[in-house]
């Protein structure tokens, strides 16, 4: 890697740990009176959003602004694919405006990949169709690590390995390696519409890279036929997975799946794969419940679960900003992405 972040598969274990460690450093900013770093001053980040996703856009916007980047929001929702300006022409436009990074959310799988072929700046995939959403996986990994590993990388202070230019206030981080804590041995169960989920794809790749044991729990209709080639286990029975899960990650059931024969009815889905209080009680005491949002309360997750102490849903949102800061910082502030070799 890499000038871009398009797939979680682009990240080696060292890359992923570097991002998480950097995010950990950046998280300390949140406790300071002034939350802003001058690191990306003069750099331009474009948020190119072809889909409505206020939460993801705001998260990237906040991340870029806290690093002092200039942010341009390009909402292309009106020019939906198939009509209006082509993605390539939009890319050339952004190129002409001098975008240093383009954060793209698009309904077509592979859109970020295509865009990366047309612009010189970095491309950050903020969700492409049913393919991937790598920063979601990173923020999820960050959230899991904080809950289970106390976040940090074993207390070793950083010593400026990154050497970022003009990074007043931010001292850089230690190179990843033996001091960094990964997710080895943690058991993560991802539940629901894996077939259409970019969150699931990115999480399977990233969490397994970080050493977690991932299990997908879903009705067979919502799993890819070739899921056997993925680095994870598969189960059709959620109840049998819960007692051995450290983390349960519930996926959103999209409205359009509900009438497309993937399951007989919303109620049956909820009965078999929804996380309600009774199911939550089967989890080990230390287990946490995650959801990438937005939730369908009462479908894949019951309100009392979403609002319980096990739920990390609000934390995930906060961690999203710091994780995305780390990614932007590493892609734009440093040199080549895994530049830290010392």
């Amino acid at each position, binding site marked *: 890697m890499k000038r871009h972040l398009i797939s979680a598969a682009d990240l080696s274990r060292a890359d992923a740990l570097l991002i998480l460690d950097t995010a950990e450093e950046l998280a300390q900013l949140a406790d300071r009176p002034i939350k802003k770093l001058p690191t990306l001053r003069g750099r331009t980040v474009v948020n190119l959003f072809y889909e409505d996703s206020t939460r993801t856009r705001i998260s990237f916007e906040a991340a870029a602004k806290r690093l002092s980047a200039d942010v341009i929001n390009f909402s292309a929702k009106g020019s939906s694919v198939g009509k209006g300006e082509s993605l390539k022409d939009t890319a050339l436009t952004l190129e002409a405006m001098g975008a240093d990074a383009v954060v793209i959310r698009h309904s*077509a799988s*592979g859109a970020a990949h295509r865009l990366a072929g047309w612009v010189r700046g970095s491309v950050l995939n903020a969700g492409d169709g049913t393919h991937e959403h790598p920063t979601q996986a990173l923020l999820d990994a960050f959230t899991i690590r904080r809950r289970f590993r106390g976040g940090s990388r074993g207390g070793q202070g950083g010593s400026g390995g990154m050497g970022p230019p003009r990074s007043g206030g931010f001292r850089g981080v230690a190179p990843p390696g033996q001091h960094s804590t990964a997710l080895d041995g943690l058991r993560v169960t991802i539940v629901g519409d894996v077939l259409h989920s970019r969150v699931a794809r990115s999480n399977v790749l990233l969490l397994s890279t970080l050493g977690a044991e991932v299990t997908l729990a879903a009705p067979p209709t919502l799993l890819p*036929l070739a899921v056997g080639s993925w680095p994870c286990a598969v189960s059709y029975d959620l109840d049998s997975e819960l007692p051995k899960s450290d983390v349960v990650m519930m996926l959103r059931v999209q409205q359009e799946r509900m009438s497309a024969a993937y399951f007989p009815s919303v109620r049956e889905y909820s009965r078999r794969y929804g996380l309600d209080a009774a199911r939550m009680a089967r989890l080990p005491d230390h287990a946490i419940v995650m959801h990438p949002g937005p939730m369908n309360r009462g479908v894949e997750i019951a309100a009392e679960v979403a609002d319980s102490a096990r739920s990390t849903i609000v934390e995930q949102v906060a961690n999203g900003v710091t994780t995305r800061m780390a990614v932007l910082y590493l892609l734009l502030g440093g040199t080549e992405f895994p530049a830290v070799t010392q």
Partner: protein
Amino acid sequence: MGGQGTGPDRWLIRGVTVAGYGGREGRTADILLSGGSIAAFETGLNHSGAHVLDADGLIALPGLVDLHTHLREPGREDAETVETGTAAAALGGYTAVHAMANTDPVADTAGVVEQVWRLGRAAGHCDVQPVGAVTAGLAGVRLAELGTMADSAARVRVFSDDGRCVADPLLMRRALEYVKAFDGVIAQHAQDPRLTEGAQLNEGEMSASLGLAGWPAVAEEAIIARDCLLAAQVGSALHICHVSTAGSAEIIRWAKSKGWPVTAEVTPHHLLLTDELASGYDPVFKVNPPLRTSADVVELRRALADGTIDCVATDHAPHPVEAKETEWSEAAFGMTGLETALRVVQEAMVDTGLLDWAGIADRMSIRPARIGRLAGHGIPLEAGVPANLTLYDPASPPAAVVSAGASKSRNTPFAGLDLPGRVVATFLRGTPTVLDGKLA
């Protein structure tokens, strides 16, 4: 003009190896083309006044016949015209192509098929045999006027809704039955529409990891199985377009073992490429049916070699640049193929030892002409037959395919790939359409 006064010039092709002549290996001979026919075919011919083409090391094949070409005219002249598409065909060694019906307007009336037929005659690069639509407007609701198209000047015998499947089993049965009256054949694009809603790529490991909606093999195989049974039931000729899966080949092998009137084609790209090429989301690799797995490629080659699959057909599907320079899911399905077909087939079938050149003549000329009921083409080279032939240099060192050719479109999946061989010359009724690899 040549010795006949009104006929084409005479050509003496010296020392060419004729595939299948005097045994599988072929034998060298001299061929004299005169008056549109092969006037003489023997060794040591000496004919003053004829153009001489030294064909040492070249192979002579009966002019190639494509059962499956999209010429796009009328309607999408920005992608291809009859003129440019047939020029591409000639450069690829073809002397006849079947022009698919999914034009705009659809070739579902005598008027449109005659227009395409006349455009082909005017272009002159190769013969253009229009394919008629099975259903009006390709809508899959009622039969087009098949008999009227058969009786037209275009003499349509192959009918296809290609691009769409005749999914309604009753309509398919009626179509198969109806064309018996004029020795027609229904060429089916086998794709169950419900099983392929929104489908983008072969359903498998690649589609799963790329997050692209899967195009399952069963959607092709189920239709082929059904249609083989229908063809047997009504005793009429069924042709399966662009077979792409190992399972399809197995079903066709079984149907043929029953003696049922079923034929099939495979495209060059399905003989060489796999779905792994989609990993970069470049829609130049997006095609329908989709590229499959290497296991499918192996079985398709075997089926073509043993005759289960009768022939190679290009499914040449030109698209303008903007139809491919886009997101994968928005991009058009299809690849060009006329100019590269023979080279791809050499790579996939000859250089692997699966077919010899007599076999190539059979699969790329003789059998497709027979399936298309095409007179004057696909005839083994001998004295007295129409002088439709292709001269090919199989020893030409592998060279990278360039995307720019005679076709108006550039969507070749083979660009940059080193392929062996070179089409040196193509003759249509004794007149060169291609000489030294260039349009004559």
